């Protein structure tokens, strides 16, 4: 294939969209291990390497644990580094996830959201990414293949910003996005190169004039202070993510914020959801609006760091909120999205009534009608005036 100087519309699935973003970003190092449904992305990128379209050192490894370990080494040595994984692969990276974030290494990783075993299931839910939510990575969710491409490019700028220097996960829903071909608008190669800019290494291990140590023993004397600085570092990322989203909008015409509010301005009821279901939810909102219902959608693009203030502003004026969680917290009080949103709204007075729905586990399909049911339920809850059942299911067979 040819180098693409001009902008072009292509039919790409989410994996290919991510691979094209990686091609245009042209990272120094990619270490990755293929896993369904992410395999297609790594294979395509390997083709770009073999065709000489990138300068990347492509490291094949024997496991995901090694993939992220290699990425950590390469990033600490001063390179721009990317990888991709899914599900069990992300789970196998678990201890290295924390190390990458603690060392403040700006690695960008594409995660195809897939259920965790057991039983074995290759289809979409958010258990993998939500299991990594506390690891210190920035997490951006994508609604469609276009957003996968756009988020990958922005992720590099966000991760490498001197005010951030943290790893970023860009997620997409397994099969629903990763294997569905959609129309995607690509920027020109040069435009992407200019947008991400040259890599600025910080505390490179290979800078022999300024020797540094990564990951030493850090006990009760300083570990706590280092964690405090890490807590503040990720909290301080929110304005940078917004800034990059605006700048990307000026370039591409596609503007990104931390959240997307859809017909929420005068709404009384809203659903809150992440990923590909947001598009389906927009259809549900439109249908209900046609029937005179005052409903809207809050789409969370940035889940980590959690944009608390923005979420409070968006949801506080509502009468009722239905949160849709595509992963569960076994033994907990609701899914991870519900728990956090309900907590954020605790200080608001008056505050909306909130319910949670588990949905879509292991790739169970979700339809416009399911989301209409969620809206009907929250409307009932508000009519009664209190929440009888905090957590329920959508699309589950009884």
């Amino acid at each position, binding site marked *: 294939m040819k180098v693409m100087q001009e902008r072009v519309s292509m039919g790409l699935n989410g994996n290919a969209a991510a691979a094209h973003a990686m091609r245009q970003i042209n990272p120094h190092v990619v270490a990755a291990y293929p896993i369904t449904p992410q395999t297609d992305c790594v294979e395509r990128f390997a083709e770009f390497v073999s065709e000489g379209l990138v300068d990347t050192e492509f490291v094949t490894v024997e496991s995901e644990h090694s993939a992220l370990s290699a990425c950590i080494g390469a990033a600490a040595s001063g390179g721009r580094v990317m990888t991709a994984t899914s599900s069990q692969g992300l789970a196998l990276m678990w201890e290295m996830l924390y190390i990458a974030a603690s060392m403040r290494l700006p690695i960008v990783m594409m995660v195809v959201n897939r259920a965790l075993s057991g039983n074995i299931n290759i289809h979409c839910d958010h258990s993998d990414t939500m299991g990594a939510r506390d690891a210190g990575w920035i997490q951006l969710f994508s609604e469609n293949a276009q957003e996968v491409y756009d988020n990958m490019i922005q992720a590099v700028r966000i991760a490498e910003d001197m005010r951030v220097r943290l790893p970023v996960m860009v997620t997409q829903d397994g099969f629903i996005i990763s294997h569905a071909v959609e129309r995607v608008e690509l920027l020109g190669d040069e435009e992407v190169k200019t947008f991400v800019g040259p890599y600025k290494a910080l505390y490179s291990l290979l800078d022999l004039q300024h020797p540094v140590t990564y990951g030493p023993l850090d006990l009760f004397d300083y570990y706590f202070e280092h964690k405090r600085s890490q807590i503040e570092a990720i909290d301080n990322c929110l304005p940078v993510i917004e800034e990059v989203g605006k700048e990307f909008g000026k370039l591409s015409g596609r503007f990104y914020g931390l959240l997307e509010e859809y017909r929420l301005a005068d709404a009384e009821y809203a659903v809150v959801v992440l990923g590909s279901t947001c598009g389906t939810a927009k259809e549900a909102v439109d249908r209900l609006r046609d029937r005179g219902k005052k409903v809207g959608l809050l789409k969370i693009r940035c889940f980590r760091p959690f944009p608390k203030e923005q979420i409070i502003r968006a949801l506080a004026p509502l009468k009722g909120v239905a949160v849709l969680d595509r992963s569960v917290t076994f033994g907990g009080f609701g899914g991870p999205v519900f728990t956090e949103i309900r907590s954020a709204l605790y200080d608001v007075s008056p505050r909306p009534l909130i319910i949670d729905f588990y949905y879509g586990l292991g790739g169970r*399909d979700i339809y416009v009608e399911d989301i209409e049911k969620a809206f009907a339920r929250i409307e009932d809850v508000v009519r009664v005036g209190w929440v009888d059942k905090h957590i329920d299911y959508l699309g589950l067979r009884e």
Partner: protein
Amino acid sequence: MEKPLEIRWHGRGGQGVVTASRILADALLREGKYFQAFPEYGPERMGAPVKAYNRVSDAPIRIHSGVTNPEIVVVVDPTLIGAVDVLEGLAENGTVVANFPGTPKELRDLLHFSGGRVAVVDASLISREILGRVVVNTPILGALCRVLPQVRLESVLEAVRAQFGEKLRAEVVEKNLACLRRAYEEAQIG
């Protein structure tokens, strides 16, 4: 927003229905349309019934659910008729496009399908005569093209050329295109 047009493909593992849905997507891209092309992933085996889907629209497509009420079903393998319910959820006035060695009336009788439209073409015969073996996914696109005004034959031909141009010998690509053209011309609609 207007509902996208939805297409469901029925074939057997190995017949290239996923590829056909992707070629259609590429043809729609050439027409400036918005589209989706996605397979139904399950335990795939050679010869087992498989499905793939397309959505077609003039505006960006937001919905990401499975297709349950398609306007068009495309049956790539005639042995599926009677073996799986190819009419399941088909929209009122929907269209059936089939690789079928008979007339539209004969297919209607077999399926007990009186509404909508039927387009039939003997894609197996066409490919056997031109290519010397049965390759049904490219010719059936010709018949589909006859009942899908959103895409012109030229765009489908270009998309097939783009799909196979680097993988197959030029002569084989030309024969595939010839199959497609002949299926477009010979498709009977009734």
